[in-house]
């Protein structure tokens, strides 16, 4: 039985450099258990890149990621990058831990994507069902010969439950890409939830939504956080949503952290205002 960790997620000096461009520069932040924390910043600030570093899609050039106080990702400049490296703390980290995204998801971090990435040829139900696979125990033989019917049943039931949670149970046999945009976003969340995460990373979940939908989404996020005992870390441009539901906010610009604090603190921060040239109201 593990004790509850202090920080659900912690980044230490995460730097991501592509060729000569430093997309994320020594980003350090943490998310406490049960919090909703937002990562905001102008377009191109490096937010999704940071997400990709956390979830293993990119291997960071430098820095470390801790999940539930355990080190899961660690890197330092190697090979060609040693000479090219333009960030800080070059020799701070010795270890190299570069797990693949599936490993990270199995640890309990789930994510959604900024550009919706549903499985195009599958129905809504199948999309969510696929996300239940990571906990399966049957091997190839038992699965092929259908000897794993108990497990199949469980996975299907779980997928249905997740669809219920987002209110899409009626549309479960519709092709995922034929759903309206807003519902596709909901479906992505259902899919991420199906992996039974403890930390949920949402990348612009409200993108393309009108104020009413954004409102509903905000309530929905708070609701599932409570229902499933989650910690939520989200990237968002809709300031009303961010201010509404976040416990804390981190602001980055040009890959660097420029401010952090409670919603009120961040709203009045002159650097933040300068970075945005006024608070966005989309």
């Amino acid at each position, binding site marked *: 039985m593990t004790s509850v960790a202090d920080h659900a997620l912690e980044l230490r000096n995460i730097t991501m450099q592509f060729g000569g461009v430093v997309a994320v520069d020594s980003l350090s932040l943490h998310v406490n258990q049960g919090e909703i924390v937002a990562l905001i910043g102008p377009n191109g600030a490096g937010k999704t890149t940071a997400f*990709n570093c956390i979830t293993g*899609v*990119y291997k960071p050039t430098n820095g470390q990621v801790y999940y539930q106080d355990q080190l899961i990702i660690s890197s330092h400049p190697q090979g060609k990058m040693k000479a090219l490296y333009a960030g800080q703390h070059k020799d701070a980290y010795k270890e190299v831990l570069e797990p693949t995204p599936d490993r990270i998801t199995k640890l309990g971090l789930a994510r959604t994507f900024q550009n919706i990435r549903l499985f195009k040829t599958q129905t809504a139900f199948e999309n969510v069902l696929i996300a239940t696979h990571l906990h399966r125990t049957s091997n190839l033989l038992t699965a092929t010969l259908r000897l794993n019917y108990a497990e199949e049943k469980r996975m299907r039931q779980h997928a249905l439950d997740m669809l219920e949670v987002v209110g899409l149970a009626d549309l479960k046999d519709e092709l995922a890409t034929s759903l309206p945009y807003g519902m596709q976003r909901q479906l992505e969340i259902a899919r991420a939830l199906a992996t039974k995460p403890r930390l949920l990373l949402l990348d612009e979940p409200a993108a393309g939504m009108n104020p009413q939908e954004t409102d509903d989404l905000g309530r929905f996020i708070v609701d599932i956080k409570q229902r499933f005992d989650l910690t939520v870390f989200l990237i968002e441009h809709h300031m009303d949503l961010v201010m509404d539901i976040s416990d804390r906010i981190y602001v980055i610009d040009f890959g660097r952290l420029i401010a952090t604090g409670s919603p009120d603190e961040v709203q009045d921060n002159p650097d933040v205002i300068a970075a945005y040239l006024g608070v966005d109201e989309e």
Partner: protein
Amino acid sequence: MTDFIGANLPYLLGGISVGGQYALIAIGYTMVYGILRLINFAHGDIFTVAGFLMVYMSATMPLAVSLPLTIALTVLLGFLVERAAYKPLREAPRMSIMISAIGVSYLLQNLMWYITGGLAKQYPRLPWVSDSVTIFTATTKVVTLVTPVLTLALVIALVQLINHSRIGMAMRAVSKDFETAKLMGIKIDRVISITFIIGSFLAAVGSALYFTNYTAVTPTVGAMPGLKAFVAAVFGGIGSIPGAVIGAFIIGVSENIIKALGLTTFSDAFTFALLILILIFKPTGLFGEAATDKV
């Protein structure tokens, strides 16, 4: 010492010669891949068609007519293949266009089989290049010496074209970023057609040189050189013309060294082993650039 040279020089010369021929074919592959991200499986067959065209034309026409005519027709074929089989699929997923290329290759081979009846045809004897010449005790054909020189000349001309002409700039732009080039007003169709025209032209020249050495022309004779030329392109860095040329020469020479060592059955397999190695250790090839995908 002279014995060693005498025994091995033919292989070395042969290697440089066939390497040059592979290079001419490889350029076609690498240019098309650079622009369309397509492995033109039919390129090797276009090379073979050029060989057959020459066989049939020179039977009824003097060389001064048949050779340029063959080259012109080969170029036309390359152009038509692109228009008919690849252009319609430009918006389709990548696999579709590659399957189309395979389909064209299949069609061309069956066509050639049908027209020629399956028996090997003899390539006509071109004056001067087919003559024998002796260097340092090794006897070989003039074509062996002409090939590398001609290849280099053509490559230099091509690189000049690409780096110093408007159309060359357009080609470079399209291979860097297809969508943006289109938005910038570059006439994509023209650029692509010219790419195929240049590739087919070089393949036609290459076939004239190749078949002067290996005179038996069959419908499937182009498959292996085609594949090897493609390996050369990948080895040198797909999209890079100098890379393709260097890769081709390396393959040509190595292949002949293996033959000199007596392991003829493996001379073909060697090329593919080389391919595997480069794909594992440096997939972008000797001179290629890595590209990162946005998630």
